[in-house]
């Protein structure tokens, strides 16, 4: 009886580290794409098998034309503040060029923390063995082709194929 109890306790204590993460990025703002990239790169650095699936507006994160010019929303973003912490007036956010300038500032701050531009970040992920996929349905919808995508993209696949890649009992799917 006691041994049985001890065994159960041991089972609880035994760690079962994550073996695979499958991350889905469906939004194309600077912060959404970077959340995906940081999590994917972090997983690769920890030796966790990593698959990333870009879909809908998230495709901007792997589209050559867009990926290095992502924006953060200056309207409808209550967490947006002026330098110094004052509230960011919604009216100001709508003026031409403001979103571009704010996004540029964000990118500069990120660069200071050694966060690479999107293109380089994708290269870092694949250099460590992570794999990047584009969603077929979204590619068709936005009338894109493989040649429009970053060279780091492995393939254009369906969600069904992506789920097939998510097998294993120590796998987590993360949606950003």
């Amino acid at each position, binding site marked *: 009886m006691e041994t049985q109890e001890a065994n159960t306790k041991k089972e609880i204590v035994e760690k079962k580290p994550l073996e695979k993460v499958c991350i889905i990025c469906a939004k194309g703002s600077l912060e959404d794409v970077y959340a995906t990239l940081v999590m994917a*790169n972090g997983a690769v*650095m920890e*030796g966790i098998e990593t698959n990333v699936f870009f879909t809908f507006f998230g495709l901007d994160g792997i589209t050559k034309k867009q990926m290095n010019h992502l924006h953060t929303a200056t309207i409808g973003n209550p967490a947006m503040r002026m330098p110094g912490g004052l509230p960011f007036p919604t009216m100001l956010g709508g003026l031409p060029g403001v979103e571009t300038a704010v996004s540029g500032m964000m990118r500069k701050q990120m660069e200071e923390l050694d*966060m690479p531009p999107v293109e380089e970040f994708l290269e*870092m992920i694949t*250099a*460590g*063995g992570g794999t990047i996929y584009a969603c077929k349905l979204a590619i068709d919808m936005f009338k894109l082709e493989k040649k429009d995508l970053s060279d780091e993209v492995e393939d254009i696949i369906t969600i069904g194929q992506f789920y097939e890649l998510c097998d294993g009992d120590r796998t987590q799917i993360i949606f950003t």
Partner: protein
Amino acid sequence: MIKTFCKTQVEVNVSEDGYLEDMSQWNKEIAHEIADEIGIELTDKHFEVINYLREKAAAKEALTIRKVGKSGIVTIKELYQLFPKGPLKFSSKIAGIPKPTSCI
């Protein structure tokens, strides 16, 4: 926590995860022993990276794999080949510097 390295019979202070607490206690034999535990066989190229990490750690510079990739010693891909499944974690451990706190 104090850890005794069997081959060299030296006692060093290590953190719970096995990182040296005082980088000056490090030597090449200790590096080889930590690498053995991880399952990495150290070559000259490994030591080039390790020496670079130690230099940067001594200068209190935050380390990222991106920085190592730009050092001119190895590319990020090569860094992963040298220290599989833990390019910054394992290299820092073997280099006798604190556990990296960077997310990149």
